[in-house]
C-alpha cells in the first residue's frame, strides 16, 4: 500500500462503498451477479480506491504576507501551516511538495513521499522574509503545467492579488483535474481594523499611502473587506474550490483540524 489517504475516486479495492444501477457503457465486470440473481436487476458494485495522494502546497511569499499586527506575520503563519500539513501528509505515506512564491518562484520542492522529504520541505519553506508582489496567475500556471498527476493543490495566501488572475489560475488547475484548497490567511487588524488616532498607512507591495483617521474609515473598510471575502467565497464555490479563512490569531491546530474535518465531510 503506497498511501493511507482515502481517494476521492471509486476504483477496484477491497472496501465496498455502494451499489449503482447499471447503465450502458459500464464495465460489465463490475456487475453484482449475486444481486442480479435475487432481484433480476443489474447493479454495479462500487469500491473505494486507495491511492497515493499528491499534495502540492503553494505558499504566498509576497510582501503583503509580511504584515502582522501581533507576534506572527501572515507569512509566518502560512509557513507553519504548510509545514504542519507536509508532516501530516508524509506521515500518511502520501506525497507532498511545496512552493514559496511572490512574483516568481522563490523555492520549489517537488512532490515526493520519501521518508526524509520533510526535511527538504521545511528547508524549502524557510526562505527569507516575504518580498515582491504577488504574481498568482503565472505561479498557478506553472504549477498546473508541472503537476502531471492529479493532485491536491493547497494555496496558502492572503489573496491580495488580481482576483481575475487568481481564478483563471484556479480554473486551470481544476481543468487539469486537480483538487484545489485555499487557505485564506488574514491578520486580525485586516479583519477588524481597530486602529485609532491619526495614522499614515503605507501600503505593502507599493499599494499606496494614506494619512487618515482610521476610525472614520472603519465602516467603509470593513464593508470593502466583507465584499472581498464574499466575492472570493462565491467564486470558489463556483469553481469547486475549497475555501477556508483563517486569522493569524487563530490556533493553528484548530484551523487545520477544522479544514481536514470539513474536507473529509465534503468527500463523504
Amino acid at each position, binding site marked *: 500500500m503506497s498511501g493511507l489517504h482515502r481517494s476521492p475516486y471509486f476504483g477496484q479495492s477491497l472496501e465496498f462503498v455502494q451499489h449503482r444501477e447499471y447503465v450502458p457503457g459500464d464495465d460489465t465486470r463490475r456487475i453484482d451477479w449475486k444481486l442480479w440473481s435475487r432481484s433480476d436487476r443489474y447493479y454495479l458494485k462500487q469500491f473505494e480506491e486507495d491511492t497515493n495522494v499528491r499534495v502540492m502546497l503553494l505558499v504566498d511569499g509576497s510582501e503583503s504576507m509580511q504584515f502582522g499586527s501581533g507576534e506572527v506575520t501572515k507569512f509566518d503563519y502560512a509557513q507553519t501551516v504548510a509545514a504542519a500539513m507536509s508532516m501530516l501528509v508524509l506521515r500518511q505515506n502520501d506525497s507532498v511538495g511545496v512552493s514559496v512564491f511572490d512574483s516568481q518562484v522563490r523555492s520549489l520542492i517537488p512532490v515526493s513521499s520519501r521518508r526524509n522529504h520533510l526535511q527538504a520541505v521545511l528547508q524549502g519553506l524557510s526562505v527569507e522574509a516575504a518580498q515582491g508582489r504577488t504574481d498568482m496567475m503565472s505561479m498557478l500556471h506553472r504549477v498546473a503545467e508541472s503537476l502531471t498527476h492529479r493532485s491536491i493543490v493547497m494555496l496558502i495566501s492572503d489573496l491580495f492579488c488580481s482576483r481575475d488572475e487568481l481564478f483563471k489560475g484556479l480554473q486551470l488547475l481544476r481543468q487539469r483535474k486537480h483538487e484545489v484548497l485555499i487557505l485564506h490567511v488574514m491578520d486580525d487588524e485586516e479583519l477588524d481594523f481597530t486602529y485609532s488616532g491619526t495614522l499614515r*498607512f503605507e501600503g505593502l507591495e507599493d499599494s499606496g499611502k494614506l494619512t487618515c483617521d482610521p476610525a472614520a474609515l472603519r465602516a*467603509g473598510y470593513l464593508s470593502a473587506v466583507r465584499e472581498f471575502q464574499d466575492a472570493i467565497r462565491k467564486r470558489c464555490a463556483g469553481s469547486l474550490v475549497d475555501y477556508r479563512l483563517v486569522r493569524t490569531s487563530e490556533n493553528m491546530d484548530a484551523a487545520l483540524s477544522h479544514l481536514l474535518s470539513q474536507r473529509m465531510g465534503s468527500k463523504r
Partner: protein
Amino acid sequence: MNWLAQYFMNPGFVLPGLALASIPILIHILSRLRYRRVRFAAMEFLLQSEEMNRRRLILEQLLLLLLRVLAVLLMMFLIARFVLDPSRLLILGGASVHHVVILDDTMSLRDRTDGKPIFDRAISTLEQMLAQGRENSASARVTILKMTDPSRPIVSDRRLNAALFQELSPLLRNLKCSYRSATPVAALEVARDALANEAGVTPQVHILTDLRAADWTGRPEVTAALESLKSIEAEVTIVQLLRESHANVAIEQLTADSLTIARGVPWRINLRIRNFGTTVAEGLRGVIRIDGNAIPAGLLVPDIEPGAVVDLSQDLVLQAEGRHQIEVRLDDDSLPEDSRRFIAVDVTDRRRVLIVDDEGLQEDAGFVSAAISADPELTGIVVDLRTSQVVASTDLSVYDVIYLMNVRDLPADATQLLAEFVEQGGGIVWYPGDQASLEWYNSTLRAKETRLFPVPLLALSGEADSGARGREAELEAIVFEKHPIFEVYNLPDSPFDDVIQMSRWFRVAAEWERNDVRRNDGVKTLARSSRTADPVIFEHQSGKGRILTFLTGAGRRWGNWPIAPAAPGYVVMHLLIHPYLQRPSELIQQLEIDSPLKWQWPVSDYQDTVEVYLPEPESTDDPSADTFVRLQAGFAESSLQTLPRQGSGAEPEESNEPLYAVTIDQADRPGVYRVRRFTPEGNSRDVYLTMNVPVTESQLLLADPAEMTQQGKLEHVKVLDADAAASLTGGDKGRELRWILLGLLIAILISEQLLSLHMSYHPEVVK
C-alpha cells in the same frame, strides 16, 4: 476695547476668548501633522473606503471643528457676559426697553437701618441698576419718578447711556427723602401712561420701596393700578429695600383747645402717642421745647402696649406775648421724624368776650361774666358787658365770643355785623330770654343769608300748653349729649347734671323735625329736657364760626343752673365754651406735610413779595439748607376763581378780583415756618405755619411679598430684595440671552460628543 463694552459686561475676557477659539483649529492641524506610520497590507480596501467617504469625512471633520470652535466662543460669551442689544437684532423686533423706575421717597424711607436711612440704600441700589443698565444695553431708555411727586419726573424717557449716568449721579446723591406720604397709585398711573402706546418697546417698571403693608396690602386701588400695568404687558419688579419691620413709636397728635391764648394762663396741650411696634414700648421719655428751649419738667410717657395709644396732656404757661413754637419730642427710634411734633400758639395779654344782655339788671350776664372772668389773671379773659343798642357801633373783631342774652331783637346792621363776625370764625352764644321776639328770631335770624339761629321757636314752656297755664311750672333736669363743652357732665357718675333744675325754656315749633339725622340741616341737638325730651341746647355752624343756642336761661330766673349746687358745672361749661367757640387764629395754621404748599390772595390784600423764614434744619438734614427765602408771587391761573381771603384753607368766597399765587416748595420739612407778607401800605404781617409729618407713614410693618403678589392678577409682578435687583436692570432680554447661550453651549457640546462618537471607533463590550 470701548466698543466691546457695548456688547460685553466683562469685555476683558473677549480677546483672550477669541484667542482660545483658535485652539481647536491648531489641535486639528497639529494632529494631522503628528501621525504614526503603519505599514499595511490591505490598502486596497482602505483606499476604497477613503474614496467612498472622502466628502463625508471632510464635512464631518469641518463640522466637528466648527462645533469645537463654537463651544469655546460660547464659553467666552458666557464668561464675558454677552449682552444683546435688542435694537441691533432684528429677530427681536428691534425693540428697546423702557425702564420706569419709581423711587419711593415717602417719609417711611427715613426709617434707619444700621444707622442709615433706607432711602440711602434706595439711591445706591438705583445707581447700581443704572450703571448695569448702561453697560448692558445701549438702547434702554429710562424714566425716574418720585413716588411723592410723580408728575415731575427726575428723568423722563431718556436714553440710558454714560452721559445720562454722569448727569444723574450727582443728582441722585443730592436727592433727599421727603417727609410726605404718598400712595403708589399716582406713580403707577404715571408709569402706565408713560409706557402705554409705545410700539416696539418692552415696558418695565421697577419700584424701589420699603414695601410697607399700609401702602401695598389691602389696598384695592393699588392692586388695580398694578393690574393695569399688565394691560400694557409691562413687567413690574418691586425692589424691597428692607427685610424686617422696625418698631416705631410716634406722636400721632399734638393739639390744644385754642391756639390763641392769654399770657400767664395755663394752656393745655394734648398728645396722642401710638406704639406701632410689636413689643411694649418701655421707658420712653419726652421733652417739650418752647421756642427751642426745653422746659425743666420732662414728659413722662407710660409703657405702651403694641398697637396701643396713650393720650397725655400737659399744661404750659406762657408769659410772653407774641407767637411761640412748641416742640414735643420723644426719644429717637428707628424713625425719629415722627417722634417730634410742632404746634404754634399766639399769646396775647388778654382774651376778650362780649356779653350783650338787654335784661334790666343784667343778672344773667353777671352770672356768665363771673363764671368766665371772676379773676382775669386766672382765666385770661376780660368781659365787656353791653346792651344790644351798642352792638352796631362796636368793633366785634376784637372779641373771641359774643354772648347774646335776653335780646328782643336787633337792628339789621347789628344783625349783619353778627353774621359777618360768625362768618369769619367768631363764636356766638344765644340765650333768647322771655322778652325775645319770636318773629325776629324765627324769620330774621333764621334767614338763609344769616343762619344765626338754629331752630324755630314756638313759645315758652307753660305758655304753649294751655293745660299747664296757671299751674306752677314743673322742674326738669337736663340730659346732655356727649360734647366738649359738657365735659364735666359727660364724666361717669357726674354729680353735676342731676342737680340742674330747669323751670322754663323755649319750646321748638312742633313741625320742626326732632331727629338730627333725618333733618340733616347741620344743627346738632346737644341737650334735652329730662321728662319731655324737649331739645334745649343746640350747636350749628355759619361760615367759619360756631353758634351755641341755649333755650333756657343763663341766670336763676328759669332754673338753678348758675347757683349752688349746680354752679360748678355752670362755671366749667362756660370756661370750656370760650376756647370751643373762639375765633381760630388766622395767623397760625397747622398743616401736615403734603404736596407743595400753595397760597393765593387778592392783590388788594398783600403785595406779591413773600418772605419765608424756614425752621432750623435738623442735623441729619442738609446743614447748608436755607433758613430764609424770598419768593415772588405770580398771578393765579384764571381758572382759580375762588380764593381764601387770607391764608389758605379758608372757605373761599366769590370774587372776580385778580389773585396772587405762590408755591412754597421749601415748606417740605417739619417745623414752624414764618411767612411774611406785606400790605399795600407796606406793613408786614406774619403767618405761622406749623408743618408736621403725616401719621400715615409711621406704621412700618412690612407687607408679605407672597401675600401681596397673590392679590388680584399680579403674575407680572415680582418682588426682589435690593441685592438681587442690583444685577437685574439690563432687562430680561439680556438675562434671557444668557440662558440662550447656555442652552446653545449645551446643545453644541452634546452635538460635538455625538459627532465624535460617530467618527471614532469604540469596540463593543462583550458580556
